[in-house]
């Protein structure tokens, strides 16, 4: 069962919000509603977050992402649509039910930390447990654990104002973790921190997620942050979700000009992985075949070397055309088969940035899965053309932007 399901969420601020929703459904534009005194913040947002996933909603300020996240835990009531947490409709819940759902299912980390300034660090961290009705001893013990997990041992009895910004946000994170809910909402949680601390916190979050298996809905306006931590990313613009996909999908196949423009500055080598650029090996030699077969295959494909695999497709090594050509009379590949050096065999999720080193040493890099099976190759030339694609989008962007503007102008 998915952790979060958002069904056609609308939030229109103004007196007659419902009418605004109807007009949007009938195809009215944002400007039209604004003229009528209505502010559409979120328009027809639907998405699903699977259990254990880090789902990032990415958009600039004013794109409606903060409103969206507040509809997930019911801080804002949607004008239309509803949200389900593990199949339970939180939008319809009121009073006691709503509070129970929040205590059980969903906790939140805030952009400006929103710590309770009059409570000590540990009492802040224990707050979620306090509302859950956990006894004092136990909640302090668990809050202490959460603080330790967030790297804040020894600060229990201090007031939040005595901590630096990064540390305060760790308290915010500890407060959410201590509550031990299934879902964690993070509203621009790292945006108020300086870049070095932000990276540090991102790494820690990923680590914590792997350790604890929480479902995380993360909001950010920083695309690099989104790409770094998100399993999947929803791109938001003017209240609408324009694309949902993995970082690679969004990079390689942007849904529209807006997304394309956005991703133009992203450092592809950090986002794209070996799996996204690898090719099917042109030719693979079975380990039981002999030098003649090898020689023929390499000639056919005009390649100087090729990988050799076993029956179960595990990578055994490689042979070169030169050597094979000199030993055509041999029955098998004994003495001709070289082991693939560790560097030249990588896992599918290795980033492109980490392929450059090996690529300098060997003409082709083998991509193998966890079981050691060969699943693809990255020839040096492919690596270079993947980077070239970046440059191409840059060039392609110029007319696209102009187009976009003309369209906007025409609409206005």
């Amino acid at each position, binding site marked *: 069962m998915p952790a979060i399901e958002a069904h056609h969420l609308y939030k229109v601020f103004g007196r007659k919000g419902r009418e605004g929703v109807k007009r949007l459904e009938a195809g009215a534009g944002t400007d039209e509603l604004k003229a009528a005194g209505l502010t559409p913040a979120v328009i027809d947002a639907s998405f699903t977050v699977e259990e254990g996933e880090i789902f990032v909603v990415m958009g600039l300020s004013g794109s409606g992402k903060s409103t969206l996240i*507040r509809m997930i*835990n019911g*801080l804002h009531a949607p004008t239309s649509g509803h949200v389900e947490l593990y199949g339970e409709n939180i939008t319809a819940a009121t009073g006691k039910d709503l*509070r*129970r*759902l*929040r*205590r059980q299912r*969903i*906790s*939140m980390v*805030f*952009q*400006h930390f*929103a*710590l*309770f*300034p*009059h409570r000590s660090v540990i009492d802040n961290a224990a*707050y*979620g447990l306090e*509302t*859950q009705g956990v006894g004092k001893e136990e909640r302090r013990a668990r809050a202490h654990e959460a603080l330790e997990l967030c790297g804040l041992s020894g600060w229990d*009895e201090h007031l939040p104002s005595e901590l630096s910004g990064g540390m305060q946000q760790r308290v915010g994170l500890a*407060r959410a973790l201590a*509550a031990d809910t299934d879902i964690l*909402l993070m509203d621009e949680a790292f945006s108020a921190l300086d870049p070095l601390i932000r990276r540090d916190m991102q790494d820690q979050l990923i680590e914590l997620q792997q350790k604890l298996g929480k479902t995380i809905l993360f909001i950010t306006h920083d695309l690099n942050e989104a790409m770094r931590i998100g399993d999947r990313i929803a791109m938001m613009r003017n209240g609408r979700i324009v694309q949902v996909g993995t970082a690679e999908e969004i990079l390689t196949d942007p849904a529209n000009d807006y997304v394309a423009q956005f991703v133009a500055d992203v450092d592809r080598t950090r986002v794209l992985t070996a799996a996204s650029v690898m090719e099917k090996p042109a030719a693979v030699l079975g380990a039981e075949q002999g030098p003649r077969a090898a020689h023929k295959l390499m000639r056919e494909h005009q390649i100087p070397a090729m990988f050799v695999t076993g029956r179960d497709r595990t990578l055994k090594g490689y042979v070169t055309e030169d050597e094979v050509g000199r030993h055509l009379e041999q029955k098998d590949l004994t003495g001709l088969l070289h082991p693939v050096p560790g560097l030249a065999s990588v896992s599918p999720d290795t980033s492109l940035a980490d392929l450059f080193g090996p690529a300098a040493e060997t003409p082709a890099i083998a991509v193998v899965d966890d079981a050691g099976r060969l699943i693809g190759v990255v020839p040096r030339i492919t690596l270079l053309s993947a980077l070239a694609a970046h440059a191409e989008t840059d060039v392609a962007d110029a007319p696209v932007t102009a187009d976009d503007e003309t369209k906007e102008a025409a609409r206005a």
Partner: protein
Amino acid sequence: MPESAAPVTIVPPIPIGTWLETGFTWFKQTFDALFDVIGDLITGAINGIADPLLALDPLVLAIILALLGWLLRNWKLGVGTLVGLVLIIGMDMWEPAVETLALVVVATVVALILGIPLGILAARSPVVSRIVKPVMDFMQTMPGMVWLLPVLKLFSIGVAGALVATVIFALPPAVRLTELGIRQVDGEVVEAGQAFGAGPRQILKDIQLPLALPTVMAGVNQVIMLALSMAVIAGLVGGGGLGNEVVGAISTLNLARGFDAGISVVILAIFLDRLTASIGSRRPGHGRLRELRERFTRTPATAASAS
């Protein structure tokens, strides 16, 4: 031009005052018994405070109040309080001063019991806020002495009427500053409470009120100051205490007595102001009481966390 009639005007006579009086008279007649009970209660409460205080030796009480000043603020306030109160004793104004103090204390307590919940309601409901605001403006801008009239009608001469007039005059800051204090609490912090599943009452008790406390205490301080000034004016309707002394001094043109009473009021005002201001500005959990408690129960653990 005939001179007998009033000047001709298109505005008909609007005797609001007369209407109010009619209404008041009806009110008084209908609820007479109730007001008798209220009057007795109030008189009882004020005497209940004033009598034991007066039973103490003036110097002993002065020292106790000075200690209170030291505990809640610093030794300077303690010494100042002692000097001031000894001065009052010396001017032979001790008894009326204690009576006034009792009146102010009861009026403040009543004003806070009414005002703080009203302020909380106003902070939560825009409708209540819209209704409360003009009423508070009306109560505050009406000249204080005017309140003495309906009060006289309801309770006749005596300390009960004086107290009601004082409460009416001193109430607004309690309401206003409670509302302001709660509204000032950072919205994201309140959201945090909600997000973790706290109910409205928990949010009020654990988040809003503690964070609004400095502002609420500023309101309490103002309530006390207004109560003191009105308690003196209420001397006109038999409020007793220093007000009585002032009224008596005016009617007999006794300048010496007037100033003795006036200076006593000033001393009380400064004492009450400093005392309550210190409560408002203090960081929660960092008062002298706690400091003392920690000093006497110091263990290695608390010593480490306090440093």
